[in-house]
């Protein structure tokens, strides 16, 4: 299992892309975009948010973040600030951002039972 994951990582690295839990994106490109667009509010580390009402993104599931971004852009998820931000993002940008933030050291997790 570990070998298989390693293999996927190695193959991904060759393509400059990595497949993080079903989302294919380029984390380095995501970091660049995040620095320009997202970091002011969500923090470049995805943890130090500007305000408590903004979510921590570090370590969040990438497919969830990708869906959130797409829905902000389409208007299915309603938020004025995020709608404006998402308009400027392509599908590839969104995937790259999701993979980048998912890769960061996380402070969020699964609820205890």
């Amino acid at each position, binding site marked *: 299992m570990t070998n298989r994951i390693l293999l996927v990582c190695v193959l991904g690295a060759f393509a400059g892309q990595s497949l993080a*839990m079903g989302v294919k994106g380029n984390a380095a490109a995501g970091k660049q975009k995040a620095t320009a667009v997202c970091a002011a509010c969500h923090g470049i580390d995805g943890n130090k*948010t500007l*305000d*408590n*009402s*903004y*979510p*921590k993104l570090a*370590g*969040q*599931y990438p*497919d*969830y973040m990708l*869906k959130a971004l797409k*829905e902000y852009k389409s208007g*299915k*998820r*309603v*938020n004025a600030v995020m709608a404006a931000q998402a308009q400027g993002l392509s599908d590839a940008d969104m995937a790259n951002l999701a993979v980048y933030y998912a890769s960061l050291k*996380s*402070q*969020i*997790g*699964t*609820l*205890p*039972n």
Partner: protein
Amino acid sequence: MTKTISFLAFALALAPTAGFAKGDAAKGKSLAYTCTGCHGIAQYKNAYPSYYVPKIAGQNEAYIVNALTAYAKGERNHPTMSAQAMSFSAQEMADIAAYVSAQKTAK
């Protein structure tokens, strides 16, 4: 454990208010029992639409209140979450957020 929660509740009480009802983490814990059915299982996937249910333990408190409010108002769409959120009062949402945001993550 109870001491930790009391301390957290006390610390939260001292924290500057972010403009929403103050949450009671102890009450939030029992309200949040339902949440663990999905948010308490690592890598749990929705049947439809299919994606991983987001990690919420340790998430920012005010964001959780906003998310629940948005589901209740229909600004966010998810059948299960809308149904859950509509069943909570503003105070209950604050209680849940106080509990959920105070959880340390296992990994």
